[in-house]
């Protein structure tokens, strides 16, 4: 089992090791896992100089953070509406939501392109942020969580005269903190890694996010294998940090929706 786990991480180990090698050592076989003379220049190149990833990082951070905050808030609001308020047509509307999940993004790309042009947000970060705030999965996940809170709690508060806004803010949100954190972390990872939307909706290089920056790097420096591996390491780093901090959350959250789903 340990063997399999190591097999899973080997590509990452090779990536990191290669990023410290000199160009002539890249394809040494048998693989020299620890380069004889570790070279820092590839990493330096990624962080400083003309191929710097810093702008891509800042763009990605901006897009991912705003999208994540928006998506978490909007999902929690909608999920509360879908579970703790009774109104006509609610469940039909939810089924409709689920059906929307089946539509492939490819169906929507061109019309979204037209809509973004019309709204004047094509080739701006808003083209990623605004749709990024809408996640049907997020509504689904938060709804699963709110369903697990007995309705009696909110109903008795309602009878005692608290409005829905107050119940939501003062009772449900504090209870939902772990679920919100989970959703936020998962959502952040999606936005950080989102290549496909960025590919379609961003043109200007100064707007590029990390995945586009990576692709751009490979197009420009396509024989600089060490540099590629240093760039790849840089692109992964933030998610590694987030993952090791929030590992518990991610795993519980994902398995909660899938096992009880």
């Amino acid at each position, binding site marked *: *089992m*340990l063997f*399999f*786990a190591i097999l*899973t*991480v080997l*590509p*990452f180990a*090779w*990536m990191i090791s290669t990023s410290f090698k000199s160009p002539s050592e*890249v*394809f040494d076989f048998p693989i020299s896992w620890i380069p004889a003379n570790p070279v820092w220049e590839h990493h330096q190149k990624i962080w400083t100089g003309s191929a710097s990833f810093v702008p891509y990082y800042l763009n990605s951070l901006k897009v991912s953070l705003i999208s994540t905050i928006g998506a978490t808030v909007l999902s929690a*609001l*909608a999920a509360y*509406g*879908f579970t703790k*308020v*009774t*109104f006509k047509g609610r469940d039909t509307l939810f089924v409709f939501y689920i059906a*929307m999940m089946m539509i*492939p*993004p*490819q*169906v*929507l*790309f*061109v*019309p979204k392109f*037209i*809509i973004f042009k019309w709204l004047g947000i094509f080739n701006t970060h808003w083209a990623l942020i*605004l*749709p990024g705030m*809408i996640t*049907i999965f997020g509504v689904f996940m938060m709804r699963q969580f709110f369903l697990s809170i007995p309705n009696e709690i909110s109903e008795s508060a309602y009878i005692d005269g608290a409005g829905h806004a107050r119940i*939501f803010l003062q009772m449900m949100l504090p209870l939902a903190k772990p679920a919100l954190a989970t959703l936020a972390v998962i959502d952040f990872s999606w936005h950080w*890694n989102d*290549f*496909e939307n960025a*590919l*379609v909706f961003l043109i200007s290089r100064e707007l590029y996010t990390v*995945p586009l920056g*990576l*692709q751009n790097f490979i197009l420009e420096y396509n024989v600089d*294998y060490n540099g590629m*591996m240093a760039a*790849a*390491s840089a*692109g*992964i780093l933030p*998610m*590694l940090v987030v*993952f090791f901090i929030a*590992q518990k959350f*991610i*795993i519980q959250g*994902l*398995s*909660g929706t*899938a*096992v009880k789903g």
Partner: protein
Amino acid sequence: MRKKQFWVGYAFIAPNLLGVLLFFVIPAAVSAVLMFTDWQFASPVFHFVGFDNIKRLLHDEQFYTSLANTALFLASVPVSIALAFLVAVVLNRSVYLKSLLRALYFLPYITNGVAVAFVWMLLFQPKLGPINGLLRSIGIENPPGWLTSPDSVMAAIDIIWIWFMLGYNMIIYLAALQEISPELLEAAKMDGARKRQVVFRIMLPLVSPTTFMLLVTGLIMSIKTFGIFEALTQGGPGSSSLILSLYVYKTAFRYYEIGYAAAISWALFAVILFITAIQWFGQKKWVHY
């Protein structure tokens, strides 16, 4: 009271619903109309061409190639799920290192697809790459060209995808396995069931709802993916790794044939619907709740 709740309910849902309308419902409707036009990006004029795009689709060789490649790609999903189940069973038993191993397996799933594509591109490098180096060292003289050869490119991508999905599937299985009551497994052992019997006759049926769920979401997610293909091969060599979702993207944003791209994208939707429907009706046979 009822009436008041109606507006309150919508007030909570409204911001999200507005987004769903703007970014899902309206685009879907627009796309359904575009499918019947000959609109190309650059030109302001377009005509309604009826079912011409759909007719063209039915005679398009590229379309059938990409359909077949999509099927080859989706084959990796059940393989990854089966492997994940086995890994989860073992990991569920061992107490040591459990959380570390869990984290290691999960790494690929949260990493950047483009970065992953880079690393595998070099690992699969036909002449000098470490994978073929390994194959040569165990006596295989003509190892495959992997991503550079039409015969092996889909196999190579399947390997990457199995690796990519394994950790996620495994984590979900682990959670499901932990919900099985220990008494049940204990009782089976008392009755003399062998280890293998416990795994395949008791655990496997008990986690079947999880398997079902992983299969449905895994297939849907995979069929929509094209970023990793764009980064790895761009559908090549030739069109040997062109899958449906990438074909839509290329038709729209490389060849600017919007009407036709819309038609292909709805064919993609039809495939998703078809797969989901089959699973939905097939689940009665093997999913035990």
